[in-house]
């Protein structure tokens, strides 16, 4: 049996546990309502009584336990792996002149995909890496590619260049 303090701050009861449970299910009593067991002098919230825990709606939080304000955690920023690999391959395509037609396109494509991925993923960083990869890839194709094509088209130029080189 419980005494209960109503919304009008008046004391009612004692009422049975069954009656109280029904009031809770009807919404007339909630977790913050103060009740006093007849055999104790202590007033406590309904939410603090284990007898009613199973039927109390979860939403109303008991006042006794202040809710910790839920602050959104700052999302850990991490680099887009694709952007970083684009840069690594971009450097690689410059390093190995034979790789201009193999590695450089991969660097450019990876960089472009990374850039579009970064737009839809605010938690990812690495725009700068992707740009490095794209530009170095294009540079490798322009420099080595045009040089190769030029040499293939002008065999004489090659021969002259080789002859003019001090050995």
């Amino acid at each position, binding site marked *: 049996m419980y005494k209960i303090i109503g919304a009008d701050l008046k004391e009612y009861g004692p009422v049975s546990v069954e009656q109280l449970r029904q009031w809770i299910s009807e919404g007339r009593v909630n977790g913050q309502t103060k009740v006093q067991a007849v055999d104790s002098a202590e007033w406590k919230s309904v939410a603090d009584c284990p007898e009613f825990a199973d039927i109390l709606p979860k939403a109303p939080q008991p006042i006794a336990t202040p809710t910790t304000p839920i602050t959104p955690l700052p999302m850990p920023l991490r680099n887009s792996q694709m952007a*970083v690999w684009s840069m690594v391959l971009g450097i690689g395509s410059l390093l190995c002149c*034979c790789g201009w037609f193999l590695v450089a396109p991969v660097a450019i494509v990876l960089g472009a995909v990374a850039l579009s991925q970064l737009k839809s993923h605010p938690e990812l960083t690495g725009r700068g890496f992707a*740009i490095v990869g794209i530009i170095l890839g294009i540079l490798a194709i322009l420099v*080595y590619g045009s040089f*190769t094509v030029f040499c293939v088209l002008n065999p004489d130029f090659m021969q002259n260049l080789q002859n003019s*080189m001090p050995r």
Partner: protein
Amino acid sequence: MKTPLSFSLLRLGAIVAAMLAGTALAVVLFVFDPSTAGFYPVCTLREMTGLQCPGCGGLRAMHQLSHGHLAAAWRLNPFVVALLPAGLWLGLREMARVLTGRQWPGLVTRPVFGWLLAGALVLFGILRNLPFCRGQ
């Protein structure tokens, strides 16, 4: 982060394939010297113009390195020799990330490093072809 963020069998397969390929390449490089064996791919720039690209001599340098000849490797291509530890670290790091989900500290933390490295690479490529710098 207890489990890898994007763990998949495909990634694991790629890592295993990369490890196997790397080991095979290392064995081939150790046994056959690129300066005498004929089956290595030839640098197109070198073949056609006689100019050395920034990567020229890299395979020969790694062959020398695998036999412990650091000085000879350095003479062939100092840039590749200097970059090798960084490359190994990147590979190991990628492997550790896929296998354990732990992120080791990265080397290229800022894009400006990429620009510097690329600039140094281009500079090295130009310098090594100038008459007073040609070592070989």
